[in-house]
């Protein structure tokens, strides 16, 4: 019934077009409205006293002086909030045997990491609340802290939770069979240990929340800087016993999230309770130091890997063991084991081999929780796999690109599955690889590298192939019992003046969700994009849906919008048919005009149909009820995930005297299926790559022996800045998924997935002449010099 999705010369064809984001202009004028900016009448401010110990028993809390301070409205401790909030546990049923202690907004008797919120103060200003914190004294009995990952795993180790027998949160094993035989018969066996540091998302806007409970109506409104307002509506409702329909969560402009703002944080839960206790709005904004000690951290893995390779360089088998430390609790409601689970399932995924064995051990320690952050598990799986491929290539004597060309799953082999059971609909490793070779001018780059090496300049080229999990079905969380939706909903209306309003459950954090949804709606309806208004981020306004995570916005949200737009179009054409005495099938909409399909001649404007339907329904045939609002839901069916793939390349220079790495250029070839807005896709990739480059070279949460975070400030924790980052050259292969009409898959995590692997390979490539090797991230100058025996 519609023109092909990507013909860019027809009117209102927005799918595939690089149009700027309509909602970005406000932000450029300083008119963003972030939770940080919002002020409500009678609003109070919360501040939290935090534990100075990584592990201690709370003996007593003396808050009398704080309570007496003028301007202080409430001082609350664990028991105060435990009376009104039910505990939560960060486990999911499909992770068999996993455990985690129940959590409350504020602890009752034990603190389990340095920085954990212990006492809340609500006062007339943040500064006053902080003054009051200084008047509170907490008597602690220090307990042994579990800090080191290896120590945590020893039997008889001190325990994060003294009530249970070990520090193990979860164990999993995968075995496709045939692994031992494959290793026994292989000519080459490559073995390598890896370590990946902890880092943290560092969104520029810290976490921010305002809870506003109105006791008269029993209504809770929460302005919450989050990706997932519906998830929080559900959680606030269930844990505080407020009927779901009386909980409204509004997520306005969000200053970055990347997964970090979709977890339950103790302070955020506390703020809801504080507002209920006071019957007034309460605001909390984490300051940067609080962000470092209480936002989720990510990664923190120790991996042992083995790879079996035959004489021709064909990968035969892999055997890996991943140990990951997740802090004192598993996060709620998504858990902290998803990352490790994805690491062991994604290792080796681009390659065609059958025998795979993996073990995962997820361990508690007295640090802040780790959990899902952009590209969950992918960077670890990719770095391990790609470094092993490079080591194997070197052993066999193959060029890294040739080694990959020999081993990736062939483009004509689909549908197929990975040895770990992931089902692949259609990927394009070979096409991407060839595209990258040309994009980098690979042979010329190798020649330049060799030439410079003769002059004592040590450059490296790194390659990393990857797959990315996108468009998750209920297999991701729903099956584990989490009330996290994999479907989305949209309500689409033709307004009385003939414009279009689309309220949709996917959310915006700057990636361009609203822009692409308006492109899809305008394209499918046949109206100008400026006549489409998108509403997101308010549970009172849009239908319930999964919102934005795991790269589902374009693929699932986009398909929801597409199907809703097609329904609204059918309804509009039905009324048009009645007015024009035509079969609806003989009509179409172009540029806001109903046209004859054959003639393309305008017959009637959409605005006129709206006017008649809303104001002169008496002129329509009896019995006609114009349906100019449609609500539509879409849940992914077919493949459990829409996998995407791609390949990245990195060119860098290592200063062997100082250990500094200078990134020169980065290359990405990516296949995210149907591209809705090429500019936005490229910018997602660039932003993602830079987060991976930061992880590769700079970012690490460093802890002291007693479990204190040592570098919790933006001066001490290094993030990638403009002058250290390279230009990033991007190209695409487009393999749409056949599971949807739109054919879009995700792209937001692809950049992060492979960037650090690329850098790891490139640094090692630069160091080959020295026989030096690095298998740890971040690759700091000290690590480089150590590898060169110069430190």
């Amino acid at each position, binding site marked *: 019934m519609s023109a092909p999705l990507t013909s860019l010369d027809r009117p209102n064809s927005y799918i595939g077009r690089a149009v700027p984001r309509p909602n970005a202009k406000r932000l450029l004028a300083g008119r963003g409205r972030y939770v940080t900016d919002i002020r409500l009448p009678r609003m109070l401010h919360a501040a939290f006293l935090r534990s100075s110990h990584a592990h201690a028993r709370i003996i007593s809390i003396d808050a009398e002086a704080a309570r007496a301070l003028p301007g202080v409205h409430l001082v609350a401790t664990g028991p105060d909030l435990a009376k009104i909030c039910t505990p939560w546990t960060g486990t999911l049923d499909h992770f068999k045997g996993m455990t985690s202690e129940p959590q409350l907004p504020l602890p009752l008797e034990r603190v389990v990491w340095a920085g954990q919120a212990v006492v809340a103060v609500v006062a007339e200003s943040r500064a006053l609340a902080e003054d009051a914190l200084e008047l509170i004294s907490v008597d602690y009995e220090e307990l042994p802290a579990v800090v080191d990952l290896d120590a945590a795993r020893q039997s008889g180790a001190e325990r994060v939770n003294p009530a249970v027998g070990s520090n193990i949160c979860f164990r999993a094993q995968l075995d496709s069979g045939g692994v031992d035989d494959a290793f026994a018969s292989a000519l080459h066996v490559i073995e390598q240990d890896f370590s990946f540091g902890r880092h943290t998302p560092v969104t520029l806007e810290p976490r921010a929340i305002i809870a506003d409970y109105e006791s008269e109506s029993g209504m809770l409104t929460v302005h919450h800087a989050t990706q997932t307002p519906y998830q929080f509506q559900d959680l606030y409702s269930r844990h505080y016993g407020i009927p779901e329909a009386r909980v409204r969560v509004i997520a306005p402009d969000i200053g970055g999230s990347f997964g970090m703002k979709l977890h339950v944080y103790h302070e955020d839960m506390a703020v809801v309770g504080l507002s209920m206790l006071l019957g007034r709005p309460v605001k909390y904004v984490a300051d940067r130091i609080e962000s470092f000690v209480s936002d989720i951290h990510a990664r923190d893995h120790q991996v042992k890997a083995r790879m079996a390779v035959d004489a021709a360089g064909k990968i035969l088998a892999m055997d890996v063991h991943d140990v990951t430390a997740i802090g004192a609790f598993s996060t709620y409601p998504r858990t902290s084991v998803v990352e490790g689970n994805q690491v062991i399932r994604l290792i080796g995924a681009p390659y065609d081999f059958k025998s795979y064995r993996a073990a995962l051990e997820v361990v508690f320690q007295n640090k802040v929780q780790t959990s899902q952050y952009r590209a969950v598990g992918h960077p670890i799986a990719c770095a391990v796999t790609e470094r092993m491929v490079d080591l194997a290539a070197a052993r066999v004597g193959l060029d890294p690109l040739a080694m990959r060309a020999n081993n990736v799953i062939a483009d004509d082999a689909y549908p197929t599955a990975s040895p770990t059971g992931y089902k692949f609909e259609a990927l394009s490793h070979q096409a991407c690889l060839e595209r990258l070779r040309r994009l980098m001018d690979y042979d010329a780059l190798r020649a330049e590298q060799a030439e410079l090496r003769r002059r004592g300049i040590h450059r490296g080229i790194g390659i990393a192939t990857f797959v990315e999990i996108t468009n998750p079905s209920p297999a991701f969380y729903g099956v584990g019992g989490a009330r996290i939706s994999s479907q989305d909903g949209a309500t689409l209306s033709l307004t009385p003046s003939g414009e279009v309003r689309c309220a949709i459950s996917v959310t915006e954090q700057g990636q361009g969700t609203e822009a692409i949804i308006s492109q899809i709606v305008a394209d499918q309806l046949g109206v100008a994009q400026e006549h489409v208004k998108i509403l997101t981020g308010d549970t009172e306004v849009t239908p319930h849906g999964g919102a934005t995570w795991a790269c589902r916005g374009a693929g699932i949200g986009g398909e929801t919008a597409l199907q809703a737009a097609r329904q609204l179009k059918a309804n509009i054409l039905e009324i048009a048919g009645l007015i024009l005495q035509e079969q609806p099938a003989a009509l179409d909409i172009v540029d806001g005009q109903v046209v004859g399909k054959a003639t393309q001649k305008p017959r009637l404007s959409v605005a006129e149909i709206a006017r008649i339907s809303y104001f002169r329904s008496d002129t329509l045939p009896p019995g006609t009820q114009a349906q100019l609002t449609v609500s539509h839901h879409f849940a992914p069916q077919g493949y459990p995930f829409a996998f995407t793939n791609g390949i990245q390349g990195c060119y860098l220079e290592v200063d062997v005297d100082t250990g500094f790495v200078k990134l020169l250029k980065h290359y990405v070839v990516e296949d995210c299926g149907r591209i809705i807005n090429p500019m936005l896709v490229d*910018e997602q990739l660039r932003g993602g790559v830079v987060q991976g480059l930061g992880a590769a070279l700079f970012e690490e949460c460093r802890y002291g022996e007693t479990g204190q975070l040592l570098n919790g400030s933006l001066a001490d924790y290094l993030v990638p800045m403009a002058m250290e980052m390279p230009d990033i050259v991007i190209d695409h292969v487009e393999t749409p998924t056949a599971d949807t009409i739109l054919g879009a898959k995700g792209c937001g995590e692809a950049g992060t997935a492979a960037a650090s692997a690329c850098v790891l390979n490139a640094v090692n490539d630069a160091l080959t002449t020295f026989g030096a090797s690095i298998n740890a991230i971040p690759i700091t100058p000290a690590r480089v010099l150590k590898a060169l025996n110069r430190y």
Partner: protein
Amino acid sequence: MSRAGDLDEADDAVRVRMVVNGRKTACDVAPRDTLVDCLRNQLELTGTHAGCEMGACGACLVQLDGRAVHACLMFAVQADGARIDTIEGLAESGVIADLQAEFHRRNALQCGFCTPGMLMTAHDLLSHDARPDRETIRDALSGNFCRCTGYEAIVDAIAAVAEARTTKASQPAEGSSS
């Protein structure tokens, strides 16, 4: 010690006079209030953001007497007598209209939280150096953290504006006699 509640706070307040975005403004601040607190909370100029409150991220950059400064590193009382221009003021006056338009066209922002600071730096740079190369632009941005964009689009946008301004400047002004 008995205290007279809110009166204490008022007793401590200091009156600060500034010209903010071209208007004479007076406000009462506590001696410990930073300029970014005063702008955001007192004057409701929320386009200036706070990302680190220690001079590391550039989200709080404003112009003070024509120079870009970190509003988080100054007490509000130190700005007494100064001319302050925030993103709201620069946007309304039109002096950065080309930068805003090019940032928009090139999608040089995602969440937008760093953007006012980025525009301040870009404006500052281009007023000192009309033709910065990419390296110089990246260097000028070295105090502006952006977690979303990866910086390249921002560099592109600033480079394009520099070029457009130079081209415009080299053309004879309209209406000039030949």
